[in-house]
């Protein structure tokens, strides 16, 4: 050992993941640490790669819905919706109102359940045990409703090109209204537990800051972008489905730090409840569930299309190239988690190890969607 080696202070390289409790799946961060401070980070992905996009080229259009279920496995309905609407756009299909409302109700419920999972894991990352229990309690109400509607708790396969699979249970409206009542109280309780907790504020305020300009340059979308002060929401800017008919607010953060990304999501849950209430009121009681003239195995005309939706994590876009056959020629997904992950490095520099966990958690990535 030379004299120089003894005096040199070396950065410690730490592999955080793929088997680490706070990487939210099989994600690996290579951290270079100077003591407790993060000098640099290199994210590694691909541990959950299943080749969904390539698989889709060899599947019939209705079969691809199941692949989308498995992409964002926390916001399944939102994934299904993006694909179904993209194909509908390609085929210029007009979907009847009733299935449109049902889709919106289910997607917004799914947004709440996804944000509730975020709320719980955020608490866990910060070291609090109780939020995850509260979050899952609220999720469970929604999951039961999903199970009653689609028959599955996660991989629903409920949306169809041109509509939905089958009639929801007869007491669907009452059940949703009941769940909404419980959610109101539940969201308030979750909010009270964590949002303005002094220790939580210490851990999240001014941590992992990113300006609106920088966030736009990195392609951030969804709550993570809105936390930086940019009120961009696909539901409002490029309204799809029936989102133009609802009155709701877009929560926007002021600092772009971890706390804002958290609080924007909590506020969004309340807005989703508002949207569902309006949708329940406006939804017609009867009517067709699938658009007229859509064949069981659709063959969209030759052409290509891109359609963006607002998933719980951001702009979820689907690009389809059709050669007129019953399988897409090429399918490309713009997964919000994957794009949002790009901002990890600028956010993490010069933060602490403990912050690394919080910042990654605040981006709310789903590895199924990152790797596809």
């Amino acid at each position, binding site marked *: *050992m030379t004299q120089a080696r003894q005096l040199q202070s070396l950065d410690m390289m730490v592999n955080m993941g793929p088997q680490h*409790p706070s990487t939210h799946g099989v994600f690996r961060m290579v951290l270079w640490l100077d003591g407790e401070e993060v000098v640099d980070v290199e994210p590694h992905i691909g541990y959950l790669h299943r080749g969904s996009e390539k698989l889709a080229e060899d599947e019939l259009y209705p079969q691809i819905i199941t692949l989308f279920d498995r992409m964002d496995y926390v916001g399944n309905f939102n994934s299904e919706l993006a694909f179904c609407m993209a194909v509908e756009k390609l085929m210029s299909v007009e979907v009847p109102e009733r299935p449109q409302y049902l889709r919106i109700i289910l997607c917004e419920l799914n947004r709440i359940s996804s944000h509730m999972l975020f709320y719980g894991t955020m608490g866990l990352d910060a070291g609090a045990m*109780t939020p995850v229990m509260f979050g899952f309690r609220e999720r469970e109400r929604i999951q039961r409703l999903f199970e009653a509607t689609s028959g599955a708790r996660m991989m629903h396969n409920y949306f169809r090109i041109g509509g939905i699979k089958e009639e929801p249970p007869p007491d669907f409206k009452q059940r949703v209204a009941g769940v909404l009542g419980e959610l109101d109280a539940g969201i308030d309780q979750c909010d009270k537990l964590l949002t303005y907790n002094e220790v939580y504020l210490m851990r999240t305020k001014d941590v992992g800051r990113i300006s609106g300009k920088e966030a736009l340059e990195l392609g951030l979308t969804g709550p993570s972008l809105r936390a930086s002060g940019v009120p961009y929401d696909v539901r409002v800017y490029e309204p799809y489905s029936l989102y133009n008919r609802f009155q709701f607010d877009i929560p926007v953060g002021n600092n772009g730090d971890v706390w804002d990304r958290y609080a924007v999501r909590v506020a969004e849950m309340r807005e989703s409840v508002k949207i569902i209430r309006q949708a329940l009121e406006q939804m017609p009681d009867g009517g067709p569930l699938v658009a007229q003239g859509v064949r069981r195995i659709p063959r969209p005309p030759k052409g290509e299309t891109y359609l963006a939706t607002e998933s719980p994590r951001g702009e979820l876009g689907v690009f389809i190239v059709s050669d007129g056959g019953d399988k897409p020629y090429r399918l490309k997904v713009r997964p919000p988690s994957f794009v949002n992950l790009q901002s990890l490095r600028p956010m993490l520099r010069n933060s602490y190890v*403990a912050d690394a966990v919080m910042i990654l958690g605040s981006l709310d990535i789903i590895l199924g969607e990152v790797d596809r």
Partner: protein
Amino acid sequence: MSWLGVFAIIGGVVALMVFAGVLGMFTFVGRDPGDAALAPPEADDGPGRLLVLMTTLGGGGMMAIAAVVIVLGGLDALIVAGGLLALFAFLSVVVLALTYMERKVLGRVQQRLGPMRVGPWGLLQPIADAIKLITKEDITPSWVDKGVYWLAPVAFFIPTFLIWLVIPFASGWVIRDLDLGLLYIIAFSVLAIAGLFMAGWGSANKYGFLGSLRAIAQLISYEIPIIVVALTIAMLTGSLNLSSIVEAQGSVPYIALQPFGFVLFLIGGLAEIGRTPFDIYHAESEVMGGPFVEYSGAHWAIFYLAEYVNTFLVGVLVALLFLSGWVGPVLPGVLWFFIKVFAVVTVIFWFRGTFPRLRIDQLMALGWKALIPLAFVNFVLTAFAVFYHWPGWTMTLMGLGLLLAFGYLVNARFTAPGRRPTVRMIPAKELRGA
């Protein structure tokens, strides 16, 4: 005679530490934990798990007891040794009760039931857990430094265990009623840090290493406010003897005279035992259990035991120093003592259900910039009150004033209306027009 006993015990533990340290030095010179992982694993499957348990528990305990016996000899030594054995049995039962209690309290906080399956109301759950832990495979990774790795649980457990030698459970219910009891406790609680560092260093794991460095920083800084508060109490009593501290309190517990000291001691105690919101050195979401990350089975069980014994110790010390120990009406003293201790411990468990965890730099800032200066202010004010014989309520007022100032500072820094962050709500209608 009791003095000799103290020296014997300290000597035994220090010898153990030095032995372990030297062992570590020889093996680890010029070797860093990262490179060790790359070395080819040696073909060595280590001793059987029961053997490991016996060597760690038995060997460690024997060494300490032998040291006492050798130095003292005779009846007195036997009493101490017997007392230690009885204490060990007692503390094991207490730890079992604490794990059950913690899970029930957390369940209550989190709107669930907690353990319910093993035995009525899940009462046998801790026993099932204990059996599971002991019979579990004790994995020794091939790259660890075996000597340091195996001694670490012992080096952590023995000091925390020996503290109980001077703890009175009721009037006269004490193995050694030392006049320097409080000093002895503080000295031994510092010794336990060596065990944590040995665990982190010996397991040659980066997370473990990071965790043990955190532990050293955290435990050493939070000793200071604890010592200053303990000095304040000693000043009020004029003694470091725990029994006389309780007797001096009588029916007016020191929490009435030292409300701020109580809060400081509780915060410092929480940091000292690494419990939420200060569980930084074994934060699961960051360093995955810190120094204990490589341990499993019986070895891990010893750490676990020591951690819970420490939690209980904080409850006991708060009860002794601030809640007038076993003094209380109607019920027998021991019962009062345990009621008070378990009340404090419940609060500690309740914190675990409520608070997130601080970051290490914030922990250090809180310790050095807030707790230590405030502890000294409290000390000086109390000194004035004691020296000039001011009536008791002046001390109460000063303590409450400091407490209010502390609360105001925290509020002004984080949650005051001007400081608290908010979210703007932009109606979708406005954006659609744009």
